[in-house]
């Protein structure tokens, strides 16, 4: 161990003893600090988790979706459109999709019935989203029954629940067979809800969209990028709103920290004077004070972050749900998939620790440069 490191060890020891001696005062600061980190980390963790959900939702989406508009309203698409679009340059596949909403009065919410293009369930069977399974208390082989388009009960046997890679993506989802779908909704044969277009080169997506509109003026074309951007914008806006509200809190906290650091008590001034008079250099006192701030920051950051993490991923984030999630009124329990990532931690440290350090640096320096010779008199 070199002298330099021993010196730091000694300074850390003293800093810890110093904080322990002023427990009450440091505790208040620690709690305020932890609260700030908790709230800001919560917003960031929650927003990022939702963003990830949305991305997962779009990951399997086709590059382009074509809908038909009649009198400005979404209308069913005749199978003939598929051939019209299949010939377009750059388009690798066109597939008709079937999906629709069913209002469930018992839940008071809309469910999405979806016919997967591959691996559809067998007739009479259904695969359901995890939130729906939870809400209805359903498991494998249970029977789920809804009233169909003619008001008759239509039973589905639960073949399984969808795994929770993404909750948003499949929370309210029911995957059904094409035959059941058409029967349930009395959906006309030869018609589809919309068309999914695959485009080989991402740079050609816009070109293809233009050509679709040229051929089929009654179509509406939605690209995956556009949807991603819409989601992103919605999240950014909400998260930005919350963060800007919290930045006021952060400012208040920085002011508090500044005030605490600059308002040294007579006792503290005397102690720093003693240290300097007995041979501590300005740099020693400065380093010791920086250690104090550093240790406080570290513990408060960890405490705040861990609490935020538990709040978001294990307590369903009751504090943020209303503002951030926005669209989903369905699920009282909405478990996000947890993730820890270094970039997020670094961002949070920048956003929360840096204001504290910035606010206390000058007062700490002032304290460290106090004149030692006052100690010779009282």
């Amino acid at each position, binding site marked *: 161990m070199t002298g330099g490191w021993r010196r730091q060890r000694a*300074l850390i020891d003293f800093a810890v003893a110093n904080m322990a001696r002023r427990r009450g005062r440091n505790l208040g600061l620690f709690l305020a600090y932890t609260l700030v980190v908790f709230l800001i980390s919560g917003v960031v963790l929650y927003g990022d988790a939702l963003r990830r959900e949305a991305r997962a939702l779009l990951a399997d989406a086709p590059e382009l979706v074509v809908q038909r508009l009649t009198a400005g309203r979404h209308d069913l698409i005749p199978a003939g459109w598929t051939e019209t679009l299949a010939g377009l340059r750059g388009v690798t596949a066109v597939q008709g999709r079937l999906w629709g909403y069913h209002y469930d009065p018992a839940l008071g919410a809309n469910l999405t019935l979806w016919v997967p293009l591959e691996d559809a369930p067998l007739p009479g069977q259904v695969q359901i989203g995890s939130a729906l399974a939870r809400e209805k208390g359903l498991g494998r082989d249970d029977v789920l029954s809804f009233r169909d388009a003619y008001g008759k009960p239509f039973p589905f046997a639960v073949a399984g629940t969808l795994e929770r890679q993404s909750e948003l993506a499949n929370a309210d989802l029911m995957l059904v067979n094409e035959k059941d779908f058409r029967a349930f909704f009395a959906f006309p044969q030869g018609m589809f809800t919309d068309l999914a277009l695959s485009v080989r080169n991402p740079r050609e997506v816009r070109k293809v969209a233009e050509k679709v509109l040229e051929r089929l003026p009654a179509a509406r074309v939605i690209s995956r990028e556009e949807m991603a951007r819409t989601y992103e914008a919605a999240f950014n806006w909400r998260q930005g709103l919350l963060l800007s509200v919290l930045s006021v809190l952060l400012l208040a906290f920085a002011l508090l920290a500044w005030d605490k650091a600059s308002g040294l008590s007579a006792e503290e001034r*005397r*102690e720093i004077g003693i240290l300097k*008079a*007995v*041979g501590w250099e*300005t740099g020693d006192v400065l380093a010791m004070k920086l250690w104090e701030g550093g240790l406080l920051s570290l513990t408060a950051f960890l405490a705040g972050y861990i609490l935020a993490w538990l709040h978001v991923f294990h307590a369903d984030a009751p504090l943020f749900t209303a503002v951030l999630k926005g669209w989903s009124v369905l699920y009282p329990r909405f478990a996000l998939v947890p993730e820890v990532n270094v970039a997020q931690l670094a961002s949070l440290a920048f956003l929360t620790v840096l204001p504290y350090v910035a606010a206390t640096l000058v007062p700490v320096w002032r304290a460290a440069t106090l004149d030692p*010779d006052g100690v*010779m008199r009282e």
Partner: protein
Amino acid sequence: MIELLDVHKTFNPGRENEYQAIRGVSLAIEAGKVTALRGPSGSGKTTLLGLLGGLTRPTRGRVRLDGRDVSALSERFLTLLRRDTFGFVFQQFQLIRDLSVLDNVMLPAQPTGRSYAEIRRRALALLEDLGLAQRAATPSQWLSGGEAQRAAIARALINDPRVILADEPTSHLDSDLSQQILAILGRLREQGRTLILSSHDPLVFEVGLVERVVTVKDGVIVP
């Protein structure tokens, strides 16, 4: 070894409460001897000690240590020099509350980069030597006046300085305790250290410890 050359110290220069505490002092302190500054309250003894020990910067004039001009030294190196050369015993003990006696004694050695065990060993030896060994773990504010003064002396000795500056070492003590402290200071002298005291306590000048008396009055030395 320490020389003051026409040293002036003005507090709050240029302000309303400007005060000339030292007005032109030239003084040479000899190594290995016991020098005492004597004078009435407010005459400038403490200020002069501060100037001799590099704790106070002169407003004018030069301070030399072993022939080297230290008044122009940067703050940092003046501090390091002070740490290695001088041990201070302040008028008001100046121990840190809620810190044990041992921790207080170890304080000046903490930033030197010496090993913790070594510093601790030396501090315990000093406390033993001064009869405070059983008080090592006691918070410093619980000490009696005599104990506090001995703890302060132990602290002044932790970095093994050549010079001890003691400001009114007996001012808060009764005569028995004063005798005890003066005996300790006598032992330091025998160890070959230079002692500079300030006092207006007649006892200090009676016990035969002081070898040279410097009389201070209104910021100047009177013969």
